[in-house]
């Protein structure tokens, strides 16, 4: 978390400095400072309501934080024009509400928006780029199909292709695995990490499964849900130092950020989700294994494997 302070604003990547945001009087994001390194696959992880989606929107300037600043490649994000921002950052939203049965290619073509000058329309070059983007995600065969008549997994691919058609340096993906079956979750995540490597795109995604985070990301940002009211934080009674430090912690969204393996410790996961887990090593890979509280059988079994 100190990386942000160390890093100069000229450094490439996205830097968030002391971001706080309240929604309807509830603190959603508390003093977030972090650096998203260029070229990495970064996962934002945390329980429901911890503000992962909100943080993505703040990074993409879709939401303005109450406090703090976001720097994209050293530039103050709030000063970047919407159009320039769309060339830097592609965003794959969580839910899509299909309206008209546009063809898949037409949907991807809308990603060319930041490259199309005022009053003009997409030309043959743009169509070619849109087709390339579809090919990159392995969905070119869907080009002529109606977006409303393809499966949820295919739709996810199409939305990634739309973001790629923007030719961005950063790709923000909000729960790219939601609504997908077991196999499609893996193929989408594989595709994201492949594209991040091939296209030199920095991928920042939110996920729900800690194991996916371990498998597919270089870095993890683990977040907690802020509890409003608990511990005060507004100096209501007394000045007990322990309470003050507790409240400061509760006002802080990020539990840990850094290399996936360093962040995903049983202690941090307990802190985030409130459940006990053990980190197992199986066939050279680490797996996060949830333990049922108070169930001795599970714990005895898992202790066969050394945890780190």
């Amino acid at each position, binding site marked *: 978390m100190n990386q942000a302070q160390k890093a100069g604003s000229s450094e490439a990547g996205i830097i968030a400095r002391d971001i706080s945001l309240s929604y309807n009087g509830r603190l959603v994001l508390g003093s977030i400072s972090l650096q998203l390194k260029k070229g990495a696959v970064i996962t934002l992880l945390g329980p429901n309501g911890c503000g992962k989606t909100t943080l993505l929107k703040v990074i993409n300037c*879709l939401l303005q934080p109450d406090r703090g600043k976001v720097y994209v490649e050293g530039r103050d994000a709030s000063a970047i024009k919407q*159009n320039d921002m769309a060339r830097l950052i592609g965003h794959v939203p969580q839910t899509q509400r299909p*309206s*008209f049965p*546009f063809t898949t290619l*037409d949907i991807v073509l809308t990603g060319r928006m930041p490259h199309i000058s005022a009053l003009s329309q997409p030309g043959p070059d743009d169509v070619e780029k849109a087709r390339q983007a579809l090919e990159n995600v392995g969905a070119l065969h869907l080009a002529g199909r109606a977006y409303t008549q393809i499966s949820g997994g295919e739709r996810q691919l199409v939305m990634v292709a*739309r973001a790629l058609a923007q030719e961005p340096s950063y790709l923000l993906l909000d729960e790219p695995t939601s609504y997908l079956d077991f196999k499609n979750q893996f193929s989408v995540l594989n595709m994201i990490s492949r594209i991040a490597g091939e296209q030199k795109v920095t991928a920042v995604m939110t996920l729900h499964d800690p194991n996916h985070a371990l498998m597919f990301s270089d870095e993890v940002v683990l977040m907690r849900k802020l509890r409003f009211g608990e511990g005060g934080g507004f100096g209501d009674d007394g000045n007990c130092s322990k309470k003050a430090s507790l409240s400061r912690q509760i006002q802080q969204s990020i539990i840990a950020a850094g290399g996936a393996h360093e962040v995903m410790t049983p202690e941090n996961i307990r802190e985030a989700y409130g459940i006990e887990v053990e980190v197992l090593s199986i066939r050279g890979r680490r797996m996060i294994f949830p333990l049922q509280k108070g169930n001795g059988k599970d714990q005895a079994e898992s202790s066969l494997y050394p945890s780190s």
Partner: protein
Amino acid sequence: MWIEELIGIVRERLGKSLLYIAFLTLPIFAFFISMFIGSFPVRPEELLDLIASNMLGYESGYPEVYSTVIFQVRLPRILLGMMVGASLSISGAAFQGIFRNPLVSPYILGLSSGAAFGAALCLAYLPEVSVQFAAFFFSLTAVGLTYFMASSKGSTPVVSLVLAGVIVSAVFDSLLAIIQIAVSERALQSIVFWIMGSLGTASWIKIYSAFPLFALGCSVILLLRWRLNVLALGDEEARSVGLNPELYKAIFIVAASLAASSAVAVAGIIGLVGLIVPHMLRMIFGPDHRALIPLSLTFGASFLVLVDDFARAGMGFEVPVGVITTLVGAPFFAYLLRSVRSGGWE
């Protein structure tokens, strides 16, 4: 179903692009067909001779009544019908795109209620003010009120727009009702007739006065039409690719309202055209606004003119065209809705 099959066959034989060209050139055929239709029969060679003599300035030798019927009655009516049909359809298509809903018409923001109130106000109490101007002014006032009511903190959600439109329409409908109760029988009759929508009062003055704003509104929509595809995916999706949804919503609402208001001001409230035409085209050509918008312009123009041909010559007496668009449109619409899967929209 035979219409679907027919469309399928035509599409297969000619390809979509030829069908597209056919629809784009439809107004030319609609224009010439309409020139011959009417209670005063004119043969093709007579028409050509008349047009030639009028343009080249020589004496045609036909009685004066020929030239009056063709150039002062029929021609302005056809041109006005084309303009009104085109503007209602293009603005309907734009509104459906902005609202991401194919069941929206240009009247969704209170435009028609405002226009009806304005026209009634003039017909009842202000004979010195032009009905066209009052209808135009109040239709835009209604849209402006709706927009103002729906926007808060710099954003104008689509749902708020729809609800505000309902409220503003209701207010103007109530005001209209007060006028209708208070006025004389004769004034009431002309108000009712105006509201029904008709091209019977077409004149060159109406065409000249409505054309500039019609052209302005349509050109803006035509120029920016691809951005309706971007908008139709949702505000946040639009913003993430660098399109300011609030700005473009406002631009499209202004342009579509200008086009529709200028049409309503000269022809009254012609129903269902702005809803049906874009919807039918979407079923045939798909939802891409790059094709849908120009097609709405040409097919809308042809559609209304042909329906008006029927209105003025199909029966023994003249029926307001607005009544016929509704009567012709509704069953056809119902048929398409039932036969094409989900009305081409899911």
